[in-house]
């Protein structure tokens, strides 16, 4: 390996007085002084949340207004801090969504336990649970920090759906019942 001697020239007289460096330093700090401030004045100004942000987990509905969760409980099982509690329930026979297997009777996410890992979203076969843009959760009691099913749907809203999996399944079954093939 080649040895490269680094040429360290001795400091000039001006450099040894520190003065040129001090003056250039003062001009640098002056530029910072008059430059616009970097601070985001938080409660009035909000940060711009990127589209793939993983905030508070929420439940979503499909464009027809059907709750997408079928209470398979995969998220409950995968959740590392055990923040999710699901009570499975049936869909009444007279509902227009009766062709869907199940729906949660109760769905609770304890935000004091949640670690925002996103495993629930990753594991969900129905794309029903999403970590969305909300980043700030506050409450005065422990009970307030548990999101129940109603609150989860309020936070989640409606997301677009490409598949309409259950509707297609129903159409296919009906076509089969009429003797066609699918």
């Amino acid at each position, binding site marked *: 390996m080649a040895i490269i001697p680094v040429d360290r020239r001795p400091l000039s007289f001006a450099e040894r007085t520190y003065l040129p460096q*001090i003056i250039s*330093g003062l001009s*640098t*700090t*002056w530029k910072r*002084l008059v*430059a616009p*401030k*970097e601070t985001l004045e938080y409660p009035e100004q909000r940060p711009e949340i990127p589209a793939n942000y993983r905030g508070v987990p929420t439940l979503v509905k499909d464009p027809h207004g059907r709750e997408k969760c079928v209470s398979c409980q995969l998220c409950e099982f995968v959740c590392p801090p055990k923040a999710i509690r699901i009570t499975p329930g049936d869909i009444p026979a007279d509902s227009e969504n009766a062709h869907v297997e199940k729906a949660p009777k109760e769905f609770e996410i304890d935000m004091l336990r949640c670690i925002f890992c996103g495993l629930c979203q990753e594991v969900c076969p129905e794309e029903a649970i999403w970590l969305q843009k909300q980043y700030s959760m506050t409450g005065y009691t422990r009970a307030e920090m548990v999101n129940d099913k109603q609150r989860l749907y309020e936070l989640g809203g409606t997301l677009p759906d490409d598949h309409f999996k259950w509707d297609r399944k129903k159409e296919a079954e009906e076509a089969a019942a009429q003797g066609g093939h699918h």
Partner: protein
Amino acid sequence: MDLSIYFNLPLWLRLAIQGAAVIAVLFPIAAACSMAERKISAWIQGRPGPNRTVPPFLAGIPIIVPILQNLGLFQLAADGGKFVFKEDPIPGHVNKLYFVLAPILSMIPALTTISVVPFGAYFDKAGELVPIILANVDVGLLAVFAVASLGVYAIILAGWASNSKYPFLGAVRASAQLISYELSMTLSVLPVFLWVNVPGGMGTLSLFDVVQSQSQPGLWGGMWYVFLMPVSAFVFLVALFAETNRLPFDMAECEADLVGGFHTEYGAFKWSLFFVAEYCHMIVGSAVFVLLFLGGWNPLPWIPLSMVSDWLSLGDNPVLLGALATVLFIGKVLFFIFFFMWVRWTLPRFRYDQVMKIGWQKLLPLSIGNLVFYAVVIALLERF
């Protein structure tokens, strides 16, 4: 304006009123410096600084209150109130008497030095320029130096009475640093007084006379001494930073290696007294610099106050002219306070050995050489 009521008061009462008035201006400026320090630190770091605090009963008032709120003035009041009312514990291991005495002692020289510093001037009925000053004494600068150096005793006392190692180290450093830089500081102003005290004239160390000698007509008469003696001004300024324990020379505090230095064991009001005293020292030090090298209350070099008073025909209005002179002077002093804070965020702290090296091996020879140079030049000017 009839001021005869005031001048008919007994002398001691007038002096007491004047002294109280000066302290009533100096103390709030020193306190406001702490907020200025926080704001300027913030701006240089790209932050807005404290701008939220507002008392609820004032919150609705438009324009003026938001401006004060943005400047952090309510924060200042809240901080001051906190310092007064919070618990002020005295640690068990300290020497109580001296521990309590130290912050009080630090205030005394800080507030005393202002009495010999003129901060304005006006024309009396005879057309003579009269300084606005508490005690117009001939020893002026000597008194400032003598009393200002007493400030370090408060630091030494605080460090020693705290009876723990970091405050003690801070106090030792403060005394060593003060001795090193006091010499260069005193030597650096001697050329100014050599220049002022022409042979045959009356010998003086008065700061007012220094400003007077910068207010004469002509190229040499109107020149501020910062142009005539730049090396003196530079040495004085550097020594001033060291004397007031400001960065890059804040060896006495040096929070990186000494926790808090001499004030480690202090809290609440006693702590804040130390800092008001430090800012008072900065104000008086800047005032002396402005008087010696920047023409005092003269607005610009070669444009003395008397010229301005002729333009505005304020010669027969002592109150307005005095106010104008004082505002000009305080403006220059406040610029220097800003400069202190600006330098704080520009330069890193020197190491202790570097401080000693700069003091003894660089500044002291420089100021001695400077003194010899000007003594020879002045002698030659006298001869030819």
